[in-house]
């Protein structure tokens, strides 16, 4: 991994990041998730205002913006994790995946979450063995066949670029791993159940630069099979990993465009101020 130059190029604060992504056929990508006129409240407090967003299939979409602007809120709406928050409610609008409104009464939230996996900001491996962590999603679905589970564990860990590091201690506690390994384990755990979409909420915020680079590389590889939505407050990271970027500010979607365009030539003044580090 470290033979790639990317790992070393994490400047702490580059004012005008280089756009390295090839944005050639982005417009041809099919829309997978469609957010329409979406308002969202925590109790009386409105957290999202009239969001309209189309997230393309098998690309990486980044949400950026200052703290508290509602990035996580929107991300958690995509697999209805906000159902857990008692005061949370949807004000208006809809979120469609494959054209189906995920908040409609007919939708089984369990099925939704099987298709839309999530990796959290704070890595949360279960206090079980590495093996049990990976197989957890399958076991709760009633799959107990050993040979199949073994296969999935290897495939998922290879998919999360973790296999070589942990193959000899699959039955050790997951909590004995390093922070970066734990986060990659969470990614492996998510892809073990073969979702379509993986949501990541600031997956690298607690990691050192090398671990961050490993995760970023992993995201790049996962893109071929999965649609990825990543929240980050790190603009360099957004430019490195994402194809499209959405900029949020105070609960509103300010600008949504191809990453290369948004960072090199933003339409909006607020966007420009933010990416040049004038606020946030």
């Amino acid at each position, binding site marked *: 991994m470290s033979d790639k130059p990317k790992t070393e190029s994490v400047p702490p604060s580059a004012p005008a990041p280089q756009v390295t992504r090839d944005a050639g056929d982005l417009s041809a990508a099919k829309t997978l998730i469609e957010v329409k006129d979406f308002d969202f409240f925590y109790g009386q407090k409105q957290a999202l205002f009239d969001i309209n967003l189309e997230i393309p299939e098998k690309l990486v979409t980044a949400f950026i913006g200052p703290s508290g602007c509602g990035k996580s809120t929107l991300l958690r709406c995509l*697999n209805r*994790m906000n159902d*857990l928050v*008692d005061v949370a409610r949807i004000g208006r609008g809809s979120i469609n995946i494959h054209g189906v409104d995920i908040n409609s009464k007919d939708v089984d939230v*369990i*099925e939704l*979450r*099987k298709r839309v*996996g*999530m990796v*959290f900001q*704070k890595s*949360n*491996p*279960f*206090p*079980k063995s590495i093996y049990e962590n990976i197989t*957890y*999603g399958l076991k*709760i*679905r009633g799959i107990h066949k050993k040979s199949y589970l073994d296969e999935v564990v290897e495939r998922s860990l290879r998919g999360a670029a973790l296999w070589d590091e942990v193959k000899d201690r699959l039955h050790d*506690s997951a*909590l004995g791993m390093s922070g970066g390994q734990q986060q990659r384990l*969470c990614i492996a*755990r*998510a892809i073990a*159940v073969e979702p379509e979409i993986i949501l990541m909420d600031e997956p690298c915020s607690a990691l050192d630069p090398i671990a961050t680079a490993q995760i970023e590389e992993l995201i790049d590889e996962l893109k071929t099979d999965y649609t990825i939505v990543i929240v980050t407050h790190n603009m360099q990271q957004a430019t490195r990993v994402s194809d499209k970027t959405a900029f949020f500010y105070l609960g509103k979607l300010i600008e949504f465009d191809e990453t290369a365009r948004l960072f090199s030539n933003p339409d909006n003044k607020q966007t420009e101020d933010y990416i040049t580090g004038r606020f946030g």
Partner: protein
Amino acid sequence: MSSTNENTQMNSDLFKRTVTKAKVFQSIFFWAFRLATYFIILAAGFLFVKITYEGSITLFKTEAPFVNWKFLSERPQTLYVFEWSPDSFSEEQKEAVATLEAETREAMVERKAFYEQAIKEAEANEKTLRVELRAQMKKSKATRSKIAALTGQDERLQKDLEKADKKYRKLWASALEEVPVEQRSQLITPYKSDMEVPETETWKDVMAEDPEVKAAYDLVTDIKNQKLETNALIDAEKKRLDELVAERIRITDALPENLKAQSEKELGNLAASLAWPDPSFLENRAGKIAEIESKYDEKISDLTQKYDRKIEAATDNQRMLNKLYTLKADNLNRLENEKQAKILKVKTIEAGDRVYRDVYAPKVDAAGLSAKGYSYSGGGIFPAIAGTVLLTVGSMAIALTLGILSAVYLSEYAKPGTLLNTIRLSILNLAGVPSIVFGLFGFGMFVIFFDWNVSLLGGCFTLAFMVLPVIITASEESLRAIPQGFREGSLALGATKWTSIRTNVLPYALPGILTSSVLGVARVAGETAPIMFTAAYALRDNLPWEGLDKPTDFFFQGVMALPYHIYVVSSKIPQNEYTKRMQYGTAFVFLMIVAGIALTSILLRIRMRKKYKW
């Protein structure tokens, strides 16, 4: 110079110790806190050490198996005490006791001497009897073999006699060939020959030792001699006869034919004239022989009988000796028993009610005295131990099940709001309700309303309700301590809420729940008030699993319980030397059981903690 001095002065004053109000208060309160803590520790320590010390005396023994199993495994019994305290007696009682004691002592001394003497005699007797017996046995054996030898000799003699007779008959027959047929009838007479019997060493020995045998032998010799005599006579006569016949034949041969007939006639006459031996003589002889033989037989049987009697006598002696031994053992036992009885009569009687009524009461009454009874003090506490274990296990099972279910509902499912807060507050307040109120609640609800009577199940439920607040609060706390990430992580993988709780929340919360439940266990095991009306019997002879008509009866029976037992024995019976042992023992066992339960919970928690750590 002066300025330098001033400086030094100032510097030495800089960190000088000063007494301020704050510092005084500081040290006063420091000491107050310290003393309060020491006082508490000392008070608690004193109580604990006293119970442990006194209880250990009851519970442990100095010799193997070192534990007083009787106390742990027996049912409670009454202890009857006849206190030996002359001061409290009336004059008659004093006299009666004195007489009783003196009599007992005297009787014991007397009896002891008597039995000792008897035994000494018996033992001496035994020794001589043994020697005699051995000699007699030896003698009788020799005599027996002698008799056998004699009989053998006699048989041989008889056989030889018969042989000689046969031989003689043959000779006689051949001689008769010469005798004309018509004259033969006169000649043929039964006759027995006799032969020499060799004198052996054995015979000499026997004769030397036993005159009777000698007499018998003499008789036989006599017969033999007579027979020999007869034989000789017969031989002589036979010879003569032969000669005569030979002469006659020779003469007849020499005679001319006409005289031959005449000669033969004369020969016949001669033979007739020689008819011998005299039949009466022979008859006489046979009779004499028979007589002697029967006499001999008589002697022999006499002799045998005599020795048989001697052997019998010896056996009788042996039997008597055995009897004596049994008697000795019996007597010693009786002596010991009597001694024990006498001793008990003037000291204490430890017995259950039935034994006391049947055995001791009459004796004590007869002496005009009375024994004091202390309930529970004469036996063990096993039913109470069993009851407490059952109550604790049952109520903790109920409380943990209900408590964890309720806590999961409250902390994982219920919507936050005023209602939830009210419920939480009520549960918290329940924890402060006095246990006697729980007892009354259980009495009203389970005993009367559900009609369960005073029962194990009623007690379990009452105790469970008493600890439920503690368990619910503790469980909620433990559940709250599980990071939200575990729940979200599993939900994001498509788990239902219950799956997520079951697989990813409860297992991590259980150690905490159990830890906090230790407190509950100790409380459940230790409370008296809640079971007083709902489950506890002051005394129950049957153990919980004994005498059940049907299995469900197990849950609907009252039980004894250690805390209630402690309450009863410390408040309902007198405190003195006789009851103290049992009271402290009960308290100590109770402490140990509670400590044991707590220890188990802690070990369980450590094991679970090791399994789920984050």
